[in-house]
């Protein structure tokens, strides 16, 4: 709607990120900056970090409205809290691109995000493949109230139901953090003689569990599956290459799509309102190639 300003030289875009300090989101930020650079008439303001607080994020969105940005990108902490703020932006005629997690209103320009139920299901299918004779699975969950956690759990359980001999014998909240996952896994190893597979809702948790299993000398008897597949030295793709994870699934950041969408919107072009992104399974075979594809180091 704001594309009418034809004589404008430069468009200003604001982006509110729910928490910079998660590797996945740091990568998203990096990619977004990278892809937006391709459009010289678009200026991305410093990314606003809500540090996991909805209240902070709401006021960030309001700040951007106050600053009269030409377009707004939001990665909500949770759907509900950001709904009213996004509505306010929409009322102020600012196009809003919602990234990764949704909001409960239709008044936005585009939603771009992965399908976590799908990713969970793929992870489950991989588990079924890895455990043809069934086995014991433990599940490290993200922050319990986060939508990706709920969806990744749901998809996974649906998929492993295919083999009734696969049992999820324990699950706990690892809060997306590596450091939380290690002691939990240590306790599971003490409790359970047989653990065949660890499903971590993200790579850091899966890797935290891997550390514990390796220490107990049981890593080679256990398969590890993670999610995110970041192309960073400390990320999931490398871990698959090193054989620490059996598989991980790329949780697409949507940065490239977001950049394209913003550009189109600012120039009055039509965009798809809902852009659901697929996932790619990272295996030993495609890891090197995928890493190269997504590696941004040295490009910014």
């Amino acid at each position: 709607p704001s594309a009418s300003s034809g004589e404008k030289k430069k468009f200003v875009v604001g982006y509110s990120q729910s928490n910079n300090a998660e590797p996945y989101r740091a990568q998203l930020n990096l990619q977004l900056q990278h892809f937006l650079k391709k459009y010289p008439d678009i200026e991305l303001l410093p990314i606003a970090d809500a540090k996991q607080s909805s209240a902070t994020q709401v006021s960030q969105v309001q700040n951007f409205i106050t600053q009269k940005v030409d377009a707004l990108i939001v990665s909500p902490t949770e759907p509900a809290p950001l709904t009213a703020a996004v509505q306010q932006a929409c009322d102020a005629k600012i196009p809003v691109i919602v990234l990764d997690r949704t909001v409960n209103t239709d008044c936005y320009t585009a939603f771009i995000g992965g399908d976590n139920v799908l990713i969970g299901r793929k992870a489950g299918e991989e588990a079924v493949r890895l455990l043809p004779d069934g086995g014991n699975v433990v599940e490290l969950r993200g922050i319990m109230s986060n939508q990706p956690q709920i969806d990744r759990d749901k998809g996974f359980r649906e998929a492993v139901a295919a083999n009734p001999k696969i049992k999820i014998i324990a699950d706990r909240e690892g809060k997306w953090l590596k450091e939380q996952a290690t002691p939990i896994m240590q306790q599971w190893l003490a409790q359970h003689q047989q653990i065949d597979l660890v499903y971590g809702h993200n790579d850091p948790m899966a890797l935290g569990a891997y550390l514990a299993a390796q220490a107990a000398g049981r890593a080679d008897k256990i398969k590890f599956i993670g999610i995110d597949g970041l192309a960073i030295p400390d990320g999931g793709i490398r871990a698959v290459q090193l054989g620490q994870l059996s598989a991980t699934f790329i949780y697409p950041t949507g940065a490239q799509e977001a950049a394209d969408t913003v550009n189109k919107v600012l120039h009055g072009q039509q965009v798809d309102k809902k852009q659901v992104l697929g996932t790619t399974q990272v295996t030993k075979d495609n890891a090197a190639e995928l890493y190269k594809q997504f590696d941004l180091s040295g490009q910014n």
Partner: protein
Amino acid sequence: MTTVKTAPPVKAPGESRMRRTLSALGAAQAYIGLVLILAVGIATKGEMFLNETNLTNAIGAFASRGILAVGVTLVILTGGIDLSVGSLLGIASMTAAMMLAKFSLEPWQIVPVCMVVGALFGFLNGAGTAWLRIQSFVMTLAMLSVVRGLDRQVSDNVSVGTQIAGPDGKLTPQAEAFQLFGTPGHNLFDRIYYPVLAFIVVCVVFHLILTKTRFGRHVYAVGGNPTAARLSGVNVTAVTIAVFTLSGMLAGFAGPIDAAYSASADPQAGQSFELDAIAAAVIGGASLAGGKGTIAGTFVGALILTLLDNVLGLNAVSDNWQLVIKGLIVVVAVVLQRPDLFKIFRGGSRS
């Protein structure tokens, strides 16, 4: 008996005027930090910063924490600390959302219930501190954990939305009304943003309680010297329990505001709000040793915190640097607004 020169409050005529001026200046100094931030805001962003919407937004975002800060100030004045307020706000916001979602209760029914829930847990904090004589830091830290656990359990770790649609697809009248508690863009009488109003009213009420009532005096006495307070006839136990209960009650009051603001009750809502609340009180001059502090100070402290965020945000400072600058400015503000500022640099003696 004979007329002595030791004489009652004798004041040299000029002296008292000078003194009044000085003490007024001293009082004004308490606002220097705030004024500084306002000045920077206006200088850098002018009208964009200094307009009703922006200020309302900024204060509204902090209002629920500001209300917690008032309760925490009471506790700090008695020499205690309350780390549980964030959790209490969380469970109150969950209570509010559930009452709305499950029973379609009206806002005026929801608020008192939330306040009672908060007050109840607050009472337990007070009882543990006063009767079992557990250090309030431990007691309220334990409460933080217990209440967060309960909150997550009753909600099944799922956030509960407050924008509840009726069969006609439109919001129910109760949900519609609930938005007035602070869902951004919803104002009382189309003008007044309730969180800001509520914060100010809470400040005024508790300012009056602390400065005008016997209870207020007792709060200061308990924090200043509990032994002397007890021997002066103050019921130290009752005052202690009362401040924790009030702090809990205020957290309960802030719960629905937080739920409306987020249009949902997140089982994590309020997490780490206690630090912001305590920071507001302490930046406002409250001493964690007890006996020293005011609601006006806490109000200023809250404004400093939220306007600082706002100014940095409007100036599009990057987030990492925001953290750095925020820390530095808080230190500067605290130093500047100290009444004995000049003494420090003169290297005056301290006792």
